């Protein structure tokens, strides 16, 4: 039963982390290249653009839910399992979500990088 709680917690953390990252990426692409905007229009206009993007707020909300879910998951399971499992699975989940929802070109190089980083993060907790 404890395992079920722990893995449910990890699944919730991963889900909201991926939703947050994807929406934040989408929001920032809608805002545009921040460097160019800063040079052309200044900081105030960039902030206005970000705050006028609904995806930004939904993304931040999803990230906040992921953070609090992580706190709950940590109270259900061991930190040595929950933290690396959530971080590793988020890397893999983001690669799938970015391909499907953001239509990013995830070539073998990027898949391999995501797998290596996910594996590395899991090993760091050993």
């Amino acid at each position, binding site marked *: 039963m404890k395992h079920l709680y722990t893995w449910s917690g990890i699944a919730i953390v991963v889900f909201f982390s991926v939703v947050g990252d994807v929406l934040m*990426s989408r929001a920032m*692409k*809608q805002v*545009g290249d921040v460097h160019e905007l800063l040079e052309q229009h200044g900081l105030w206009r960039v902030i206005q653009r970000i705050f*006028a993007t609904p995806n930004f707020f939904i993304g931040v909300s999803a990230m906040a839910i992921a953070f609090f879910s992580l706190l709950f998951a940590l109270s259900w399971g061991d930190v040595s399992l929950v933290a690396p499992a959530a971080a590793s699975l988020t890397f893999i989940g983001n690669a799938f979500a970015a391909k499907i929802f953001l239509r990013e*070109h995830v070539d073998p190089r*990027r898949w391999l990088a995501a797998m290596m980083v996910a594996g*590395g993060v899991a090993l*760091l907790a*050993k």
Partner: protein
Amino acid sequence: MNFRKYLVLAGVSVFAAAGDTMLSHGMKQTGHITIHHLQGLLLAILNPWVAVGIVLLLAFFSSYMSALSWADLTYVLPATSLGYVLLALVARFALHEHISLMRWFGIMLISGGVGFVAGGPSVTAHPKGSDTLLPKGGVPLMGVDQ
């Protein structure tokens, strides 16, 4: 990709690692915070380590948002995962913690992953008219550009 953009990616890694370290150090000084004693949370913010940690994490979030404005999510995430390696190296050489063989292998895997993704293109070119196509400089947003 220019030097400035690489600097932003490095900022994401460094600010996240430094912010987490400061926050962790500060929270160990302030002690346990329970749901019944939430005022402890306010006191924690007054701790200099926690305060600097929060500022660094805000810097991390700004760099992360900036990176996502010109690079793919599947590029930014692996490219900025060097923060994990940085934390392990700080633990080894500044805090003199023991790093097991498994962890060194993990560090090698992450570094390899970063090297792989950093050598490729940073952004996907979407065809004109597609849903994800966004003009250079972003889409005009109502009430902002008018």
